[in-house]
């Protein structure tokens, strides 16, 4: 699984960073980006989905 933050949609709500800091980080403006090229280890797949499903802007894309 891979995750990607669409930076044109992200408005810095920071839900992904709060819920899955192993997979996402935020820059000094609070805008999110994926870590490790978006590669999601199997044990973090549920967390990746949780982060995506809590994004108010629908900015997180998951590729299975």
């Amino acid at each position, binding site marked *: 699984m891979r995750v990607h933050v669409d930076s044109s949609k992200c*408005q*810095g*709500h*920071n839900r992904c*960073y*709060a819920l899955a800091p192993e997979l996402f980080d*935020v*820059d*000094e*403006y*609070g805008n999110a980006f994926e870590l490790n090229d978006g590669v999601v280890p199997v044990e973090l797949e549920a967390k990746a989905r*949780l982060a995506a*499903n*809590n*994004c*108010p*802007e*629908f900015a997180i894309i998951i590729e299975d």
Partner: protein
Amino acid sequence: MTTVYGPVTDWATDFDHGDPEYNKNIHQIWETLKASGCPIAHTERYGGTWLPLTHEMVHEIAYDTDHFTSRNVVVGQLKPSQVEGAIPAPIGGAPPITSDPPFHAGARRLLLPAFSPKKIDPLRSKMEKMCNDLIDKMGDREHVDAALEYSQHIPVLIIAEMLGLPLEDADKFRGWVNLVLGNIGDERNEDRMAQFMEFDAYLHKHIADHVENPRDDLISFLLDSEMDGHKLLPEHVQGTVLLILIAGIDTTWSGIGSSLWHLATNAVDRRRLVENPEMIPQAVEEFLRAYAPVTMARLVREDVEFHGVQMKEEDWVLLPFPAANRDEAQFENADTVDIDREENRHAAFGLGIHRCIGSNLARLELNVAVETFLKRFPDFELNGSEEVTWSTGQVRGPRTLPFRVLSRS
């Protein structure tokens, strides 16, 4: 108390969100409006105001900065074109919330680092101390007011310190918040105008003092900042200070108050959170969804048809994020407050380019305030003999919360 427009007799055709009954009975009123078959309610009050009630429409308007301008985001009796000396688009009176693209992006980018999670998270221990101090002050009384003695103080003290304004003026700030956001339907008399002038003079005085004596706070930061190679205009600095002060206070105070009201009236949720404090962050998100405090507003830029209704230039359009958060099309069992809700794309902090810049601060304050209250008062209930009162206007939350403390630790 009603507004200058008089009591509402038919919510479906003549609603008034400035009427005290609105916030008190908000969920029944939305039901009435939806049941009347209009997903967009309309009133002639305030010079013409629309109220879309679905997540889809709220989302669409929030994203459509071409047809809907942010020039003023608080519905009032006068439109910007009727206010003498009003600062025009794209800056507006309180940038960046009153700003439109392209000016908006630069004005917002300037502020974002100060409110990013990594800047805000270290404030946690200061907030914990503040919350504990407020509870200490209540002594061992059985009857306390969780709004007057607790929730209303937390955001004011933090925001005043961030800006560099005297903490002892907290009562003044709350008064001005009420002036700007609360009593939108009150008669526009001389006393009201005098209060606005006093607020303006106060901000002017403190900004001038920062010019003379720069320090490490947000006012000095703004005075020192540049956009496109130029220092900010004085009206930009003052407008932003006003915004941060007003927006940072009763929004979070309302959110904390509504969360505590829920916990006072839902013993099962209260016990679960006392026993499992690690559930608090998720529960707070659900409180934000179900009791979102903030409704924003836009103005129609020019006549436009929107979902079958004809909106006229300079009509107000309310953006009820709280109603979007209770839309069944977006949230399963939307009217059930479920602290186990894991998937929660709520819009309490808005959608699109105007996402609440203080959301990280507000979330932390909410979490710390709920956590500390439950730790110190594991059991409490509403004191049935006194009434809970709710705010009026676009920010919704309890203004009094008479509680009976049943246990302390």
